[in-house]
């Protein structure tokens, strides 16, 4: 069982609100990731980090931003939420070696009205 946590699990908010999705892992993993996933669809990488103070944009363009001030914490922020941001957001982490197996959190289902 992977020790990676996401809060909140569900969030319903109005358009224009600023939100932060939290992700924490207690495995000491260097690498962390954020994916966006619509129901029944594939995962799209939106952000990743190799370690503290490292953040990179993923394959899918996203209006969200991330920060990595501590190894265990990788929050994702939307400054002004819009209905098009409605989706499931999944956080994952992995060790650099010996494999890149990613371990996922339970996800945050975001609905923007």
């Amino acid at each position: 069982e992977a020790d990676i946590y996401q809060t909140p699990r569900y969030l319903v908010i109005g358009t224009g609100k600023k939100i932060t999705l939290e992700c924490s892992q207690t495995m000491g993993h260097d690498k962390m990731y954020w994916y966006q996933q619509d129901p029944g669809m594939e995962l799209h990488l939106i952000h990743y980090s190799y370690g503290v103070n490292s953040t990179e944009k993923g394959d899918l363009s996203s209006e969200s931003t991330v920060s990595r001030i501590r190894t265990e914490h990788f929050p994702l922020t939307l400054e002004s939420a819009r209905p098009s941001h409605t989706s499931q957001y999944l956080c994952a982490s992995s060790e650099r070696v010996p494999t890149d197996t990613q371990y996922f959190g339970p996800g945050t289902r975001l609905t923007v009205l």
Partner: protein
Amino acid sequence: GESVGLHLPTLSVQEGDNSIINCAYSNSASDYFIWYKQESGKGPQFIIDIRSNMDKRQGQRVTVLLNKTVKHLSLQIAATQPGDSAVYFCAENGFGNEKLTFGTGTRLTIIP
């Protein structure tokens, strides 16, 4: 660009039967492959992995087969149970690539 794709979007299997989920990949440099299971409302869960220097790897009720010649990966689940109903994703990581590339996913439904 490089992609990982699955042959079938849905698969229904009678409880107790074996199931096979297939995955094709196009990156010849792919070095490491993973199968994930995602149940409704949850994050993907690691099932089994295999490196490119292997053809077969077995776990508990699951077997992954890798055919590098045709760039094909499969997940076999033996004696399926209702709890096996989920979406299954394959993912690959090319050598030196820091990121995983995920396939579209196959929804497996176990019929009681």
